[in-house]
C-alpha cells in the first residue's frame, strides 16, 4: 500500500446479517483514474461503491481517500460526502424541485453559497451536461436521460474530488443511454476521478484505467481493460464477459 494513492481500498468486508456480501475487497486509484467495477448482479459492486461514501457501512477493512480513513468512526460523513459525488441508478432527483433547484440545493445548503451564487453554479453545471434549455423543468417533466444528466450536474455542483456512478444507465431506455455516457466521457476527458459500476462494457473498455471484476463479493480479477477483456486470467471472468457480450 502506497501513500501516493488517492483512493486505497484494503480488505473491505461487509455483512448483511449473517450473509457476507464483500470479502476482503482491495483496489487502488490514482487521482484522475477511472476505475470500473463489473460483475453479475448481487456480486457486491454497488455495495462496494456505497461503502466509499458511507451510504453503506463496511464492517472490516480500510478505505483511505486522499490520506483520510473513510471508515473511521470519528469521520464526519457529511464532510466526506461533500467531496464525493454520487450518481444513482434510479436518478433520485428531488421530485419537488426544478432542475436548477436540484443542482443548487447542495451549494446553497451545504456549501453555504448565496441564493444567486448557488443558482449561477447550478446553471453552469446544467449547461455543462447539455441542459441549458431545461432549467425550470421538474424531474417528472424530463426524460430518463435528462434526469440522469441533472443527477450528474447535482453531484458536480459540489465540485467533488471523486465521483461515484452506481449503474447510471441501467434504468434508461437504450436510446437514452448515449447522452449520459457522452457526459461521462466528457468528465473523463477533463480528468475527473471516477469510480463506476456499470454494465456498459464498451464504455468501460474505452475509458477505464482499471477494471475490477467482482463475483460473490470477491475480487476475482482486476487489470487494465485490454488485458481483462482480451486475456482474462480467470475462467469466471471469461464466462461473465461472454455472457455480457452476447447481450450487446
Amino acid at each position, binding site marked *: 500500500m502506497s501513500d501516493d494513492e488517492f483512493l486505497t481500498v484494503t480488505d473491505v468486508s461487509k455483512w448483511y446479517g449473517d450473509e457476507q456480501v464483500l470479502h476482503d475487497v482491495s483496489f487502488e486509484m490514482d487521482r484522475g483514474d477511472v476505475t470500473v467495477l463489473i460483475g453479475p448482479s448481487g456480486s457486491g459492486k454497488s455495495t462496494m461503491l456505497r461503502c466509499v461514501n458511507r451510504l453503506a457501512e463496511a464492517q472490516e477493512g480500510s478505505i483511505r481517500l486522499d490520506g483520510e480513513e473513510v471508515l473511521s468512526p470519528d469521520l464526519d460523513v*457529511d464532510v466526506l*460526502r461533500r467531496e464525493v459525488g454520487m450518481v*444513482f441508478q434510479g436518478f*433520485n432527483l428531488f*421530485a419537488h424541485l426544478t432542475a436548477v433547484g436540484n443542482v443548487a*440545493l447542495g451549494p446553497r445548503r451545504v456549501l453555504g453559497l448565496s441564493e444567486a451564487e448557488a443558482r449561477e453554479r447550478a446553471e453552469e453545471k446544467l449547461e455543462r451536461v447539455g441542459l441549458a434549455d431545461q432549467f425550470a423543468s*421538474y424531474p417528472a*417533466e424530463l426524460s430518463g436521460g*435528462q434526469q440522469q444528466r441533472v443527477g450528474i450536474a447535482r453531484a458536480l455542483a459540489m465540485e467533488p474530488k471523486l465521483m461515484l456512478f452506481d449503474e447510471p444507465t441501467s434504468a434508461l431506455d437504450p436510446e437514452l443511454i448515449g447522452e449520459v455516457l457522452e457526459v461521462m466521457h466528457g468528465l473523463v476527458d477533463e480528468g475527473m476521478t471516477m469510480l463506476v459500476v456499470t454494465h456498459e462494457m464498451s464504455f468501460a473498455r474505452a475509458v477505464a484505467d482499471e477494471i475490477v471484476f467482482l463475483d460473490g463479493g470477491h475480487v476475482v480479477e482486476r487489470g487494465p481493460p485490454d488485458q481483462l477483456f482480451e486475456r482474462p486470467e480467470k475462467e469466471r471472468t471469461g464466462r461473465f464477459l461472454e455472457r455480457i457480450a452476447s447481450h450487446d
Partner: protein
Amino acid sequence: MPPAATTALAAVDSAALATELASAATRLQIGQPEDWEFVLRNTDYLGVGVLLTVGLTVASILLGFVVGFPAGAVEVYGDGLLKRVVSTAGIVLRGTPIVVILIVMYFVVGVPQINLGVVSISSAMTAGILGLGLRSAAYQSQIFRATLASVDDGQMEAGRSIGLSRFEAVRYVVVPQALRRSIPGFQNEFTIVLKDTSIVFAIGLAELLTRGYDLFSEQTTAVLEVILFISAIYFVLTFTTNRALDRLGDYYAIPEGESA
C-alpha cells in the same frame, strides 16, 4: 385564502344569505314560515356560536399541527424513549373519547384563564382548545407519519449524498414532499375537528350546535328549521375550507407534464 373562500365566509353570518335560504326553503315548502322567521330573528345568537365554532376549530387545528407534525416526525425518524413517549401519548389520545378529554382538561387539570391583553380566553375555552387541539395532534401525527414515510428512501439518500445532514435532508427534501401529500388527510381532519367542536357543550361552552339546541327547545316546532339552518352553515364552512385546501394543493402541486 382565495377570494371565493373569503367572500363565502364573510357571507355566513350575513342576514342576506339567511333570508335567501329561508325564503328558498319556504318556497320548497320545507318547514313553516313562522319557524323560519324565528330562526332569522335569532341569527345574531347563532352568529356568536359560529364565531366560537370557527375560533375553536382554527385554534385546535393550529395547535394540532404545531404538536402533531413534530410528533409524526419523531415517530418516523426518532428512536428510544422519545419515540415511545410520543407514540404512547398518541395512542392514549386517539383511544379516549373527546368528551372525556375535555372533561379532564377542564375539571381535572383545571387550565387557567388566559389574558392576551386585548382578549381574554376563558378557562373553558382554553380547555376546549387544548383538548380538541391535542386530540387533533394525535390524529395529525398519523397523517404526517404516513406521508413522511411514503417519500421514497432514494430522496433521503440523494440528500445525504450531497452532504446534507439527516435533519437537513428531512427538512429540505422529505418534508416539502410529505406536506404536499398531507393535504387530503388534513382536509378530513379539519372537517372532523370542525364538527367535533360541538362537544365543548360538555364544559359549558355554547357553540353553534349547542345554541341550536337552545333555540329549538324554546320554540319546539322549529327543530327542522334550526337544524337545516345550522347544517347549511357547517356545509358552507367545510365546503369553502376544503376548496381552499384544494387550491393550496393545486398551487403547490409538483408539475408532471408530458415526459419530454
